[in-house]
């Protein structure tokens, strides 16, 4: 019984290795704000969601569609999905209650723990199957329909009767029969628990039909050594059966754990959706396109993390950038450029993980990886060290990107003078573009931006943070060629309150 809610043909590994730059990416895109809203304090949901988001670049568009279907089902039936998730959570708690694998060591105690635990697991499996029976018709996605069909087929009534009988037998209320052989030195060996007689009558028949002699003896109540030896013998006798039942219990727990971890992502999707709905912030299911001709068009794309932070709907941007592999964003400070860049990265991550995106519509190529190179503010005092550090990070990125990757550059190559920075930026960016990398670049490097404008106006999308005539910002990106100043003057006067001379 395999759960296939994240991949159509395989399970999900929550412990898989995340990309090396996971911390940088999470920090630059402020991913934790998104994860907070998805998890609502459930650490497990948070961890799964993080892994799913950070490994989205490995997915093909088909996988994204497969998940989108399930997300749609979940948004339509949040209560049922939450109940199933909680059922899995409760079931997993049972393990602790029965101490399996914690204090249990000897086969006899493994067996009694496993018998107790198994009774409960069978009950939980029954409940799960009832959900499938009751709500199955309300789900349309392939992922959830298949799961429910599986539960119906595999967990039929007679199956429950059979397994309950096994659990009853293994309580060993009628004693136990162990077969044995002789090992070296004629010491008993290969102790194996035998299947008990089906009923009393069968047992009698076996006794009466016997030709060979049977010898019975009792251990004296005060024979302490004898009782210890008997306990040891029982332990040896039930060893394999205890192992079989305990392993079976582990398998069922594993099944519930798989269900929990694959559902956790969708719980996150429900949580976030409800939060954004409250803010009246729009979401849309995007159209992921395979790697190839560059597609990038969206309407009202906003920074979901900013919206979650300020707890209200925020300004969105619309762009038609199909055919462009470089987006150069220039313009006013405090004009929303970083926010815009972040909204692009987040939308891309969300799309690739199979989620909806924070926009009215969004269409883009899937990437082979999303990388960020944001200006680090903290170590401003060490100018030369900063340049060194910045180039170090850039070279790490260059070492690991492949064609199809998306690189988000925020004020990169700015920690040296503009001429040098521009030249190196131009060389790096050009090399990236020619290698099939998409680059979204927020920059003040006018010389570099202008060079791209003069040499390749058609292949580059130039955006500018809008600044009104009166100096105020709209936080909108408008199409427009790079301008020489960044209106830092405005900021200066805003804070120092002096008039222009």
């Amino acid at each position, binding site marked *: 019984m395999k759960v296939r809610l994240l991949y159509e043909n395989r399970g999900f590994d929550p412990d898989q290795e995340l990309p090396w730059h996971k911390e940088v990416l999470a920090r630059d895109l402020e991913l934790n704000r998104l994860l907070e809203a998805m998890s609502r304090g459930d650490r497990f949901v948070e961890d799964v969601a993080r892994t799913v988001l950070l490994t989205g670049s490995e997915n093909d568009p088909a996988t994204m569609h497969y998940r989108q279907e399930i997300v749609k089902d979940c948004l339509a039936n949040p209560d049922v999905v939450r109940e199933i998730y909680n059922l899995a959570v409760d079931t997993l708690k049972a393990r602790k209650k029965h101490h399996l694998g914690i204090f249990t060591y000897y086969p006899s105690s493994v067996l009694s723990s496993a018998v107790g635990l198994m009774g409960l697991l069978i009950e939980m499996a029954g409940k799960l199957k009832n959900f499938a029976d009751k709500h199955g018709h309300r789900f349309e996605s392939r992922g959830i329909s298949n799961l429910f069909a599986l539960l119906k087929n595999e967990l039929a009534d007679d199956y429950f009767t059979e397994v309950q009988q096994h659990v009853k037998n293994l309580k060993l209320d009628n004693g136990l029969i162990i077969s044995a052989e002789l090992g070296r030195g004629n010491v008993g060996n290969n102790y194996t628990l035998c299947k008990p007689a089906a009923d009393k009558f069968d047992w009698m028949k076996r006794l009466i039909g016997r030709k060979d002699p049977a010898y019975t003896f009792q251990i004296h109540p005060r024979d302490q050594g004898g009782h210890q*030896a008997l306990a040891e013998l029982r332990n040896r006798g039930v060893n394999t059966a205890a*192992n079989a039942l305990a392993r079976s219990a582990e398998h069922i727990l594993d099944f519930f754990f798989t269900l929990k971890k694959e559902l956790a992502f969708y719980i996150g999707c429900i949580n976030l959706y409800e939060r954004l709905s409250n803010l009246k912030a729009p979401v849309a299911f995007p159209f992921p396109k395979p790697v190839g001709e560059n597609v990038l068009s969206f309407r009202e794309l906003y920074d979901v993390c900013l919206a979650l932070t300020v707890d209200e709907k925020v300004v969105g941007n619309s762009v038609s950038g199909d055919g462009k592999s470089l987006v150069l964003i220039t313009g006013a400070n405090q004009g929303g450029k970083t926010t815009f860049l972040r909204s692009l990265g987040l939308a891309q991550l969300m799309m690739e993980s199979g989620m909806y995106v924070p926009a009215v519509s969004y269409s883009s190529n899937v990437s082979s990886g999303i990388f960020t190179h944001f200006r680090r503010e903290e170590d401003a005092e060490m100018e030369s060290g900063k340049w060194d550090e910045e180039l170090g990070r850039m070279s790490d990125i260059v070492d690991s990107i492949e064609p199809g990757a998306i690189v988000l550059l925020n004020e990169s190559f700015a920690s040296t003078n503009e001429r040098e920075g521009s030249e190196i930026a131009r060389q790096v960016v050009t090399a990236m573009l020619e290698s099939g990398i998409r680059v979204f670049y927020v920059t003040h490097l006018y010389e570099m931006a202008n060079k791209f404008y003069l040499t390749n106006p058609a292949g580059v999308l130039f955006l500018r943070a809008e600044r009104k005539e009166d100096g105020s910002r709209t936080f909108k990106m408008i199409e427009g060629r790079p301008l020489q100043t960044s209106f830092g003057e405005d900021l200066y006067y805003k804070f120092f309150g002096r008039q222009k001379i």
Partner: protein
Amino acid sequence: MEYRSILFETGEDTSEELPKTCALYSDLNLDRVIRDVTAGYRDYNLEPLYRKTLNSEAAIQYRQAVFKDLEDDNLFEQLKVFTQNMADVRKYLSLAGKLDCKYNREGWFLHAVDTYCRAVSEFADHLTGVTLKSRGLLLFRNFLLIYIDSSDYKFLKEEARQVKEELAKVKYCLHIKGNRITVRKYEGETDYSTEVEKAFAKFKQGEVTDYLFRFSQDAGMNHLEAQIAAYVAKIYPETFRRLAKFCEDNAGFQEDKIVAFDREVQFYLAYLDYIAGMKQSGLNFCYPQLTSENKEISSRDGFDLALADKLLSDNSSVVCNDFYLTGEERIIVVTGPNQGGKTTFARTFGQLHYLAGLGCPVPGTEAQLFIFDRIYTHFEREENIQDLQGKLENDLVRIKEILSEATSQSIIILNEVFNSTTLQDETFLSEKVVEEIIELDLIGVIVTFVDELASKNNKIVSMAGVMEQSDFSAITFKFARKSPQGLAHAISVAEKHGLTYEQVKEKISNEGSFTI
């Protein structure tokens, strides 16, 4: 010819065992070698064998030939398997001797016999398939093949097999309820665990923890098991009657010569094991030619075994040295810087002879060595240094002892013996002793600071430490036939410490210039 022993062709062990306390062992580091060689072989009590050197060429060659045969890895491994099996036989028999329950005892006895027969038959089988050259192993193989073809052995082996087979068919059931146990024959009951596992298999996602408890398989029985065993014996009366008879009839089942072979052959295995690592590191071993009349000896690329073992375990490299005596030459006088390998050179000379006398392969690429009656050593010992007067006396007493015992077949190795006295005394005493040694026609090595000793006599050959060409102060641990280099060493060592005339002057003038 009849097989007698794998160590002594004639079976008679006439050679003298030297006491452990003999100075030779500590002086030549042979105590370390013997300790390490025999370390993994304590049960066989091999040390006495390593303290008996042989004094006939034939006896030595008998062993060398066995060593050569055993250099075949395959044969070596098979021999290891054989001796491990024999060790198991001893273990099982000793175990059986300690057990209370008859069935338990008999079970282990049977297992011992079965192991013995397997060891012997498999080894005989293997030996027939290999090419042997040594008289020792050829004779043993002959003996072994006759033995395994004997009706006694065949009967023992077959009977053990049959009894074992019958015991393997024993299968019974225990019905346990409360404190009552019923023992009866097994009646085709099925293993419940497989059925349980199958019933839940559909939930399987991946691998899960294994809860199988690893019970140790005890050798003995507790009284409950003994009681059950007694009932099992009642259920299978024929099987257990046969087992009892088998045990009665075969009490002393092991052949004495095979038992002796198993111990004696460890002498070879232990040594080959010990040198295997060194061979792997590229060090050479050879089978020396032996001479007892002619005193022209030689060795190429020899080394101190104990030191090599230590150096290799520290990942350091080993320096090898050559030596020879030709014509009238009898004594090598070794001079050179401190810590330059003089003692090691002397030890190498002694070890090579000692090991050759055991019949072992010796360090080096080729060697011709002397068959000695005794090796006498006297090395300077630091622990006695406080009582100089006493020490000099002791030295003289010891040297006198040596010279009165030694014969023209003896080897002598002296290492800085009189250095507790003045150089003048030392020179005088050393010269006198050398005269005596030459008078006795001994061969050997003398390590000394007395350079004059090296040019005293045409029976003496001088060997001195070789310095690195480019850097006079670098010690190579190599020795060559040349006259003592005393002064050159002194200068080079001083230079290293910045204490040559020029260096000291320069320092003083530099410092002086500041004070002016």
